[in-house]
């Protein structure tokens, strides 16, 4: 869907040349949610702006939807932009227009006749859950509602790619979750490819299939979100991963746990995304004559299942404990016995 080959972007400023994007190679597949994470100044915004031609690369090739956007003229580029739309951290709505008029704007640009515009706007208002707000002005909306308008506006011309530049960074955690859910449902319903940039690992963890980690203009690590979570290579990636699950802390307290729960067995389950913990726990309790206590848990729910660790105390008959451990093994959850009696 999107492919970048040796893409660089340099800015010449009074202070000298800034290499904002440095020799980046990426392949983003049709229909996936691709995350790019990095700290401020890493070059994320510049990279995403290259994808719709708002910036021209100083080197390399960018192919979006089969078109080499680096070499086409301004007219064709404008056509491409109807199909590669964008949402922003600060929403960037026109304050002089109502919600409905804001959503209609890209349709006006694309030359859609008025009656069709009205119908499409109503559809979009419903899609993003803003029924009844069509005649409000942006100043009358909350941040989350403004971003919904931004999303509706971006979807107006039925794009194939949606670029999100820190789309949730100005929102509180609950609103962030609601907007991320909306993005996932759009991705599933419309088959839209989403490229999302953020500095928050929670966002990547929650909705992305794959992730690229950017530092100093370079992509330093790339892969499936789960793999990157489980096995981060670069120091910067490790820092991002610890944002969500602090495993080092877990390790330090294990000895304390052993002292605290001297009976039965302490076992550590590691979830790698294919399962969620709830069905396993409930079956464990129902099927085996055991006391099951949750000692400690650190589970993150990603798009493809749970990831993280759970420490359980199993107390009861020794053979029942062994059977239970066997059962957990069969659920494709790796288990580790922390202590013996």
């Amino acid at each position, binding site marked *: 869907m999107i492919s970048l080959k040796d893409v660089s972007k340099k800015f010449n400023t009074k202070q000298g040349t800034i290499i904002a994007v440095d020799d980046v190679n990426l392949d983003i597949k049709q229909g996936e949610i691709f995350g790019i994470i990095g700290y401020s100044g890493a070059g994320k915004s510049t990279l995403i702006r290259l994808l719709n031609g708002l910036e021209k690369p100083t080197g390399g090739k960018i192919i979006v939807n089969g078109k080499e956007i680096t070499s086409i003229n301004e007219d064709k580029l404008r056509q491409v*932009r109807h199909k590669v*739309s*964008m949402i*922003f951290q600060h929403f960037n709505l026109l*304050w*002089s227009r109502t919600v409905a008029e804001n959503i209609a*704007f*890209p349709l006006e*640009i694309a030359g859609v006749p008025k009656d069709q515009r009205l119908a499409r706007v109503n559809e979009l208002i419903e899609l993003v859950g803003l029924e009844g707000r069509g005649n409000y002005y942006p*100043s009358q909306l909350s941040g989350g509602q403004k971003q919904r308008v931004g999303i509706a506006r971006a979807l107006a011309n039925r794009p194939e790619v949606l670029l999100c530049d820190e789309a949730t960074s100005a929102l509180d955690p609950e609103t962030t979750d609601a907007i991320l859910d909306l993005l996932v449902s759009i991705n599933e319903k419309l088959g839209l490819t989403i490229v999302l940039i953020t500095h928050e690992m929670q966002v990547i963890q929650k909705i992305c299939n794959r992730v690229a980690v950017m530092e100093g203009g370079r992509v330093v690590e790339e892969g499936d979100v789960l793999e990157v979570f489980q096995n981060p290579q670069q120091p910067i990636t490790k820092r991002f991963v610890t944002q969500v699950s602090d495993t080092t802390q877990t390790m330090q307290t294990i000895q304390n746990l052993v002292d605290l729960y001297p009976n039965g067995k302490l076992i550590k389950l590691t979830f790698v995304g294919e399962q969620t913990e709830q069905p396993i726990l409930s079956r464990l309790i129902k099927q085996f004559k055991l006391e099951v206590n949750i000692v400690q848990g650190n589970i993150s729910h990603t798009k493809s299942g749970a990831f993280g660790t759970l420490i359980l105390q199993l107390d009861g008959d020794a053979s029942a404990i062994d059977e239970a451990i066997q059962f957990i093994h069969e659920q494709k959850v790796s288990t580790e016995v922390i202590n013996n009696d």
Partner: protein
Amino acid sequence: MINTLFPNVDWPKMWEAALETLYMTAVSTILTAIFGLALGLLLFLTSPQQAWANKLANWLTGAFVNIFRSIPFIILIILLIPFTKLLLDTIRGPNAAFPALVIGAAPFYARMVLIGLREIDKGVLEAARSMGAKTSTIIWKVLLPESMPALVSGITVTCISLVGYTAMAGIIGAGGLGTLAFLDGFQRNQTDVTLMSTILILILVFIIQWIGDMITMKIDKR
């Protein structure tokens, strides 16, 4: 009562002068709005990073605006006499005042237009570009509507300046309340005529300010 306070005022003549002032102000405000907007947009769009970024064009427009903004209006009228003669074949009457009024006021308004346009959030312009908008669409559907409150309050201030300019133009024979105050009031030593002209001009200015404030408030949805 009013005739004892203003014994020398010729009311029909005063009324006619007021209408002339109104006419000059209205027409010159419309022309100034058009030329000022065009100049302001040109200044904005030729500045660095904008759609028509061009150092030379930006410098030339800037120089034109700054020079004509700096020339005192009364001197500008005199400087423009040959130009007016060439354009209109006369230098007397309300119409003859227009070249000087517009050339004097448009650069002033252009600066205010520029300030208004610069206040527009850069992100909004970027959003419009990301939707595939042409520069003409950006001008009509983003730049002008998004800066409208600033444009309206700017034209209100400019319009009030233009009332003053018409009075000055009156001294060299453009007509209106300025001419009346100068010829009938000052030169014939009839203070009441000058006073009445002043009162009418003040009323006009207050009405303009009130209308301008009303519109600005009504259109500002921020």
